[in-house]
């Protein structure tokens, strides 16, 4: 047995889980365990107690709620990947999921787990930041929501306080008729950690002018970042140079350097993938027939 000894509890409600968590600062939440168990095996984490929330029904499932899709924290990544609701309403998340781990880890890994782990190169946090999702957090005092870009503060670091439990992620759904998405990633092998990942979503009007646009980059720095591409709003993508806008927006980007990729490489790839993701998103938006057509 590789992990250090710990106690295992399986509370029957979220409230009970929060109480146990609040009463023991060395306790950890476990759901899919796809990141935590390797950490335990290598003894990088030595919790006193694991609180298993995987079977809490109140934390499971995908539902549509006033202009948003709410995904329960213990919903498995594979369920989200197969979900028709997600394919329709959150195509960007659908496109990103095949890049998350491998099929066997997606079968057990959860959406909330990936969010709470806050790996800077992880795809689900990237989509959450790109779309401006809200992370719902429960603690003994109640439930609160926090915007994704405030939630993630650094590599494996979040604003979660001791005793807090991520319970759902609320992704806004764009109301526009013609919406397109794009997702690109560069890694050593498919499903390995992203050196750079780019996620984009674009909405256009009947004439092809940009109504709304968002671009996010993951893996570049210490957390997923939303890039300012607002100069594109009101423009026709066919007439402006997307590459110029992205290059300008990513110029001063703080990038990390490691033995896989230098900071300079990451910045260059970020600019190229960001452009590709936006162009794909625009092409896809254009292929959706608007009201005028």
């Amino acid at each position: 047995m590789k992990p250090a000894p710990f106690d295992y509890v399986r509370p029957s409600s979220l409230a009970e889980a929060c109480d146990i968590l609040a009463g023991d600062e060395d306790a950890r939440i476990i759901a899919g365990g796809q990141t935590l168990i390797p950490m335990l095996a290598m003894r990088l984490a030595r919790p006193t107690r694991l609180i298993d929330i995987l079977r809490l029904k109140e934390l499971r499932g995908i539902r549509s709620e006033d202009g948003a899709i709410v995904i329960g924290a213990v919903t498995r990544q594979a369920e989200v990947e197969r979900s028709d609701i997600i394919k329709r309403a959150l195509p960007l998340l659908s496109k990103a999921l095949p890049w998350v781990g491998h099929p066997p880890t997606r079968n057990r890994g959860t959406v909330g787990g990936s969010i709470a782990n806050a790996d800077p190169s992880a795809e689900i946090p990237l989509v959450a930041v790109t779309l401006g999702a809200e992370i719902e957090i429960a603690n003994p005092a109640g439930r609160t929501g926090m915007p994704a870009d405030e939630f993630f503060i650094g590599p494996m670091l979040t604003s979660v306080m001791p005793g807090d439990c991520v319970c759902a992620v609320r992704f806004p759904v764009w109301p526009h008729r013609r919406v397109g998405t794009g997702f690109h990633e560069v890694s050593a092998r498919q499903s390995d950690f992203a050196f750079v990942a780019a996620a984009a979503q674009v909405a256009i009007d009947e004439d092809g002018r940009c109504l709304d646009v968002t671009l996010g980059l993951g893996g570049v720095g210490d957390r997923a970042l939303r890039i300012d591409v607002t100069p594109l709003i009101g423009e026709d993508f066919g007439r402006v140079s997307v590459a110029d806008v992205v290059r300008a927006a990513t110029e001063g980007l703080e990038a990390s350097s490691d033995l896989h990729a230098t900071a300079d490489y990451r910045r260059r790839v970020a600019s190229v993938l960001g452009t590709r993701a936006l162009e794909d998103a625009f092409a896809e938006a254009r292929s959706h027939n608007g009201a005028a057509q």
Partner: protein
Amino acid sequence: MKVKLNVNGRLREADVEPRKTLLDTLREDFLLVGSHAGCEHGVCGACTVLIDGEPSRACLMFAVQADGYEITTIEGLAPAPGELSIVQDAFCETHGLQCGYCTPGMILTAHALLTQNDAPTRDDIVEAISGNICRCTGYGQIVEAVEFAADRLRKTNAPRDPQAAVADEPPVGRPAKSKAPQEGILEAAQIDALRGGRS
């Protein structure tokens, strides 16, 4: 802690520490050593088992978390003692294994893929086994084995798993059902005969 696990259709009990992985429990308490221990931290895929029919890493789950699931190990695939499942047989025929360390994981992963999709593309197969590392055969013959198994399964012309059947697919008639599996197996055997037969 006492756990009761449904392994290969049988309820088995064990008294384990919470920190004991499902993999160690399968191997040490139930003596099902077909699930191999490789990296033991979720990278290599040698320990892959099916949890409710879905490939999952047995080293990334504690035994105390595994109650209530249907767990299938490589020992649970063969239709009868001394026989091989179609996927196992295909791996033998196409030399889809060499040292055999990754093989149980590869076969279970392939089995799960073919239960959902009996006509996978090469890309589907590569994606499905992307989490399983092989360090000797290379992946060419493994992919070939899965393609071969898919071909045989298709020829049986009946859904392998009632849950995998498409809802709007016309029901398979009784005569076809009783004849089809034999036809598929015979056909494969005839192909084998052309290639020199099975030993």
